[in-house]
């Protein structure tokens, strides 16, 4: 065979949808599809974030945990993402009865605050009217029906569609809908759109961003789909501003919220990766909300000072990281954000930049502008299999694949799947701590002179 033959394989819309719903505390996500579509999501959801034990429906305020030895029906002994295990007959005769049985089981045996039903790609072709079944079975409960995960339209599309459907289908109370619910004199609050439990360092990113907002005198009302509660979602209209971290995942949602609740939104130029991006984001938002970013800027100054000392030590001995080649294979917004930090702050040079998933026009334009400015457009043309970079930033599939082809480099995980490392200490690539951690990974990954 003449070389290696494969196409990049990225997560699809169904994965984006499921992980939005799994990012809501107290939500149970019922997958209407074959069990083959379930295992990855069940296992990964359990691995990615801390889910509390499942409880039986509360009776008289007494909470009894579910005995996992008996968690056979619909859950198949995995705690997350129960499934209707569709088979060939269901594709022919419909899935309504199975979905109804599943909903009855969940209603009677599992405590939940919200329930979402997500169709698999195959199930979406059946055409069952499941929304009616859900309303009949769970009247008065918060439920979300996600009819179609799309076909090969990418994680971000599924993520955004799930957010939009969630906000359209959930009940906001009248007082919460009113724009005047935003009381004057209170600490201003924001909703953060675009973060996902499927981010490589989601827990650390979330904590870091919440801390930086707090430093600016801003509270985070809701990290939508990123470990938020159902109550926080219901309070979404009360925020003064919606912050779109990643327009590919949150711009449509922000537009919807502006139209429905009159809430303005701010779109980050890049993900808040690197000192420059973080300082700009929090300065801009503080200006909009009339708060003071000085504590964030001071923290950033101190972090920059620390980073300078460590970078300078390596620079003195071997001239690095300046001029070190790096490659990235990731979604467009991540390629843009990491490249900006690595090129403009660390002075590194892009060797190969591969955009996976859907290429969004706005991100693509910004990426090309950045590369043109740095005379590095050719990095978009080279295949990743030819990389000569010292550092490759990507998911573990890309890193593993390149290593198995004999390339010698240090792989730095910026997206999932990971190699399998279990994180207990929260790490971040976003924010100021994130900029330090990323710098640390770069310095440790370089082959410096002994």
């Amino acid at each position: 065979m003449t070389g290696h033959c494969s196409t990049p394989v990225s997560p699809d819309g169904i994965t984006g949808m499921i992980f939005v719903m799994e990012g809501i505390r107290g939500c149970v996500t019922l997958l209407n599809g074959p069990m083959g579509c379930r295992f990855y999501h069940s296992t990964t959801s359990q691995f990615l974030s801390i889910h509390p034990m499942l409880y039986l429906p509360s009776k008289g305020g007494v909470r009894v945990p579910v005995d996992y030895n008996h968690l056979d029906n619909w859950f198949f002994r995995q705690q997350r993402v129960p499934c209707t295990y569709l088979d060939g007959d269901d594709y022919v005769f419909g899935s309504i009865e199975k979905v109804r049985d599943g909903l009855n089981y969940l209603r009677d045996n599992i405590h939940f605050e919200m329930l979402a039903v997500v169709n698999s790609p195959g199930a979406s072709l059946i055409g069952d009217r499941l929304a009616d079944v859900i309303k009949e079975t769970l009247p008065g409960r918060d439920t979300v029906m996600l009819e179609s995960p799309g076909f090969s339209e990418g994680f971000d599309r599924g993520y955004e569609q799930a957010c939009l459907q969630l906000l359209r289908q959930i009940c906001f109370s009248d007082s919460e809908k009113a724009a005047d619910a935003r009381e004057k004199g209170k600490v201003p609050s924001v909703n953060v759109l675009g973060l996902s439990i499927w981010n490589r360092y989601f827990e650390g990113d979330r904590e870091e961003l919440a801390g930086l907002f707090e430093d600016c005198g801003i509270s985070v009302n809701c990290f939508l789909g990123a470990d938020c509660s159902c109550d926080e979602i219901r309070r979404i209209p009360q925020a003064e501003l919606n912050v779109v971290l990643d327009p590919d995942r949150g711009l449509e949602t922000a537009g919807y919220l502006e139209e429905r609740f009159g809430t303005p939104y701010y779109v980050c130029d890049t993900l808040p990766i690197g000192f420059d991006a973080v300082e700009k984001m929090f300065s801009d938002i503080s200006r909009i909300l009339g708060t003071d970013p000085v504590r964030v800027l001071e923290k950033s100054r101190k972090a920059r000072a620390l980073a300078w000392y460590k970078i300078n030590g390596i620079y003195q001995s071997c001239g690095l990281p300046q001029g070190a080649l790096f490659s990235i294979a990731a979604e467009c917004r991540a390629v843009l954000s990491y490249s900006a930090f690595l090129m403009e702050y660390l002075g590194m040079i892009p060797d190969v930049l591969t955009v996976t998933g859907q290429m969004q026009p706005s991100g693509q334009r910004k990426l090309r502008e950045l590369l043109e400015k740095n005379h590095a457009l050719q990095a978009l043309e080279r295949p990743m299999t030819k990389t000569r970079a010292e550092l490759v930033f990507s998911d573990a599939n890309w890193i593993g694949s390149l290593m198995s082809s004999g390339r010698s480099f240090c792989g730095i995980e910026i997206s999932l799947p990971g190699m399998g490392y279990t994180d207990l200490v929260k790490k971040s690539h976003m924010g100021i701590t994130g900029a330090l951690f990323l710098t640390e990974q770069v310095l440790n990954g370089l082959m410096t002179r002994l």
Partner: protein
Amino acid sequence: MRLPLFGCAFNGAATTAVRLTDAIVIVHGPGACAFYTLQNITSTGRKNLFNRGILMPSALSPHFVSTDIGPAQAVFGGTDLLLEKVREALTCKPGAVIVISSCVSGIIGDDIRQAQMLSNKDTKVIVIGADGVLAGDYMEGIRLCMDTLADELIDPDVSPEGRYVNLINEVGVSNQIESNYSSMVGILSRMDVKVNCRYLGDATTGQMRFFLRAPLNILASDSEDSHRIRSRLQQKYGCRFMDGALPVGFEDTCRWVRRIGDYFDRSAEAEEIIRTEEKIYLEELDKLRKDLTGKKILLTTINAGLDWLLEAAAKAGMCFVWIGVLNYLHQEICVTSHPEFMELIDTEYDWMKVREKVQQLKPDLVLSNYTSAMEDGPYVLDAIPMTPNMGFHTALPVLRRWAKLFVSGKEGSWKNDRTLFDACFS
């Protein structure tokens, strides 16, 4: 009520097909199906690379292409898109192109057999109509793939020769695949026997074509599926099989090595191997007896062969007091072949009964497939390795671990913090 199908045939077939290392696997479905399948394929490779620095090319970098059926194909059909991908793949001159269909391509009625027409003199295009879950579960997909690849690739005119064996039906996703294979090759090489083809571990289309060169075939696992494949190869090609599967534990491995030695006229070498390994085995058991002798074991397990563990524990002076077997498939009990252990087996039990037995029999060690199934108590609680390594010394690391657990008496105080978790995260 129909039984649930675990996994889907598409995933099973694709996970198996990528082991044909010079073939390109084209999965005909939406990106979602390709994504789950690729994660399944690469999970072992990533973990081995990260934890042990082991490179497993077919599990890290499979020749894997997705047609990424989009909304247009879901409405108007995706056969043209598939044919375009097959033509592209053929330009790489692979050993074979294998096309596997998903639920969506099955439901919309794409005729993937059209891809076979693109076969050329160098490369065969093979189609596997898994249709996602329509053909069955994950295991059915593996069967479908194994049978199809054998039918399409094995040259029936090749005759057996030399001291070669084929290894049949290695388990698809397991950390042990490569270490077991290395152990087996190590033992075989001491008898000057070589592996001809792994059907289907990492193998090439060329090795599959010359599959019948090996005069003897060895099952990697003693499962229903392995037996089915054995029958099929016997009936279709007259293949000869060695009794049993890859051996696990000392006794089993001694028998296995003798059979190989007998078959290839290498009995003296076989006895020499056994003598060497027995000396190591007995010396190790001697060291462990002072910590293990007299300890009582209560065991609950699924219906899987555990003679490797039972024999070694008994040799180390331990005794089993009760064996609960969860026989959910209602098959013949295969946990042990020894009558003294058979009489301890109880297949009619639930977790309440296990707790009663623990109270009544006061074991020192409680073994289960999942430790979460039992509460902590005045005993050591441990999990049974579900996929043990092959070879003479399978049980020794397990026995050493128990000895250390008995001696240390440590359970880890983290276990007391469940209430903290509930308080913090409920």
